[in-house]
């Protein structure tokens, strides 16, 4: 009898024992499931992993298929970037928060913009009323951006900007601020989110229809590959897909399907895969089911590497590596007993680190209630530092590899993701699947069934549907002064009075003409921001040519 047969025999005996025990003392639940509702067995053994070819499917860190990580030494070489997403009110206020964060030991900046900025409206636009400075910082022109990064040397920090539909404009402003600091574009490090497809399905800050949006994105790929070579030109995001209610497998599948659509678009625009693919980056969520999350990150790396190698024939190893940022799961936080959120974030942090993330934002305990205060941001950052320096999780690479459970779950998520990707391929790709509402419907169904499980009590959320207490209303929450809207409008009036309006007009007319043709728009947008054309003015020009996206409403 070989080893597997011996284990099989022992396992059969064990299962009979389980049956007997369960007959006397029934298990807690009829069905055990992961955080994403996938079934979980009583026990995992070598029988669950016996068909996995180690070298082909798991391999070594820094080597294809990168299941164990994208670098050879991972955190033994360098820890992940601790990058806290922040921004609110005015550029002055946010600049103070960034300096606080850098002082507390964050190693990269991450800019949150307010909704008018994300949707390309100036602060004095009618639709901006009530929204200015609320969920992020208000940026109307290069003048605001100069204040935002005042005293922060752009050749020393890396900056991630959560900006999508108007990503070209904010990147242009960043390049222009750097120029004023004497920093060259090739010295810049950072990321723009620039992922429009997930805006249509999960996040909602779209402006233009898919086709011109894809053109703006591939223009950025082309421009940066020559002029801003160290910039991550896109952060293909599963984060918001998961926040919208998807399962872990759907998060991987829909993100990578979007990734395929961007690579296809860039190739169609005439770029060669190895020229832009090394600068593609990803962004995932980290929820509470530790093992499933670790398996998800490992599966995502393996699937992407194979897509890039086999489908797109990329040959630069950097084109095959899925590098990703992680944020802990905002939707897992509760407004009830908010201190409990610190514990949730700690588990999620550990999952991201055991999953081999390249950078991480940890949510603050008060984020189900408001924007975080300095005190709660500090705890969130300390959580990362404790995992980094005290937990031991960083001393060896991919320590959960070889776990029968984690390896079989990595395989399951890979398989489910590939099935989804095949279905999306058969619809004509991610853009078509989104236009049909397929992706949205899948996410909504998962979100609804999750909510129903909470309401039936089948899924326990501590402090919310079990172990509740009577609580006094929370105090000390951060509040954005509504005066910010007026202040920004005043700044705009002054700017429009003192800038060279003829130069602004010229740059906008040139941009308008180019938008009707096929030239790369990045250099023209850069010219426009340099002479202080506002974000709203630039986006209005593009709206005039490209039109606006009409959401497909699905219930």
């Amino acid at each position, binding site marked *: 009898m070989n080893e597997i047969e011996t284990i099989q025999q022992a396992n059969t005996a064990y299962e009979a024992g389980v049956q007997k025990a369960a007959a006397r003392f029934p298990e807690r639940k009829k069905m055990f499931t992961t955080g994403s509702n996938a079934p979980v067995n009583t026990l995992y053994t070598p029988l669950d992993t016996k068909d996995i070819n180690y070298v082909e499917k798991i391999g070594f860190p820094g080597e294809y298929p990168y299941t164990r990580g994208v670098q050879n030494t991972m955190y033994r070489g360098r820890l992940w970037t601790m990058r806290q997403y922040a921004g609110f009110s005015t550029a002055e206020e946010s600049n103070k928060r960034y300096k606080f964060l850098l002082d507390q030991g964050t190693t990269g900046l991450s800019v949150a913009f307010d*909704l*008018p900025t*994300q*949707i390309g*409206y100036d602060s004095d636009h009618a*639709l*901006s*009323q*009530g*929204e200015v400075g*609320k*969920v992020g910082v208000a940026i109307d022109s290069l003048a605001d951006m100069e204040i935002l990064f005042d005293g922060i040397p752009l050749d020393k920090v890396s900056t991630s900007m959560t900006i999508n539909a108007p990503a070209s404009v904010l990147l242009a402003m960043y390049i222009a601020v750097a120029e004023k600091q004497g920093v060259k574009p090739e010295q810049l490090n950072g990321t723009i989110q620039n992922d429009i497809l997930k*805006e249509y399905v999960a*996040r*909602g*800050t779209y402006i233009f229809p898919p086709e011109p949006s894809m053109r703006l994105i591939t223009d950025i790929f082309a421009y940066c590959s020559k002029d801003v070579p160290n910039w991550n030109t896109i952060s293909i995001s599963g984060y918001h897909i998961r*926040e*919208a*209610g998807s399962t872990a497998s759907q998060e991987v599948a829909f993100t990578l399907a979007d990734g395929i659509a961007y690579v296809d678009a860039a190739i169609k625009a005439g770029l060669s895969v190895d020229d832009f693919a090394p600068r593609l980056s990803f962004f995932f969520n980290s929820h509470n089911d530790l093992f499933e999350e670790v398996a998800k990150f490992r599966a995502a790396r393996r699937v992407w590497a194979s897509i890039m190698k086999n489908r797109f024939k990329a040959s630069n190893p950097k084109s095959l590596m899925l590098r990703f940022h992680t944020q802990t799961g905002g*939707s897992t936080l*509760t*407004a*009830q007993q908010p201190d409990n959120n610190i514990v949730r974030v700690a588990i999620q942090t550990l999952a991201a680190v055991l999953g081999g993330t390249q950078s991480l934002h940890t949510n603050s305990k008060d984020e*189900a*209630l*408001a*924007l975080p205060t300095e005190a709660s941001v500090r705890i969130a950052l300390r959580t990362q530092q404790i995992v980094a320096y005290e937990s031991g999780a960083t001393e060896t690479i991919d320590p959960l590899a070889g776990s029968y459970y984690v390896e079989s779950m990595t395989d399951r998520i890979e398989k489910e993701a590939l099935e989804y990707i095949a279905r999306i391929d058969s619809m004509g790709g991610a853009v078509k699947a989104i236009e049909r509402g397929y992706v949205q419907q899948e996410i*909504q169904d998962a*979100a*609804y069934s999750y*909510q129903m499980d*909470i*309401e039936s009590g089948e899924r326990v*959320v501590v402090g*919310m*549907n079990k172990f509740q207490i009577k609580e006094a*209303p*929370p105090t000390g*929450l951060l*509040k*954005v002064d*509504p005066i910010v809207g007026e202040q920004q409008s005043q700044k705009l009036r002054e700017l429009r009075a003192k800038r060279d309006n003829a130069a602004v007009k010229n740059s906008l007319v040139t941009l308008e003409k180019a938008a009707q043709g096929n030239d790369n728009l990045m250099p023209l947008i850069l010219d426009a921001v340099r002479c202080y054309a506002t974000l709203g003015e630039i986006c209005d020009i593009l709206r005039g040519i490209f039109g606006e996206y009409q*959401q497909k*409403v699905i*219930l």
Partner: protein
Amino acid sequence: MEQKIRVLVAKPGLDGHDRGAKVVARAFRDAGMEVIYTGLRQTPEQIVNAALQEDVDVVAMSILSGAHNHLFPRVMELLREKNMDDVLVIGGGVIPDEDIPGLKAAGIAEIFTPGTATGTTIEFIKNNLKRKA
């Protein structure tokens, strides 16, 4: 046959977070109500026009961007202008406790904050309708 309760689920402002709105809309529908969902980025004017055209009994607004103090009272103002005082208006989202009294004073009947079960909201609607459905 009993008339179904007609509800407009609306997303005012620029906020793109619609998971809650969609889950609530579906729960209303499963509870036997007639549900119209506006989609994202609705101005108060668009919401009130939709409420009028669809002849709804209830307007349920969801907002997570922090613009509620501006947008919710504006919707109430426009409803009054159109003599639609008999429409029950409720709100939900990330709304600090300290803002709730002001919103209620503006005429929002109830504010449902994170963690509310959909069943609670459904019960509230059934018990507080202003018109006979």
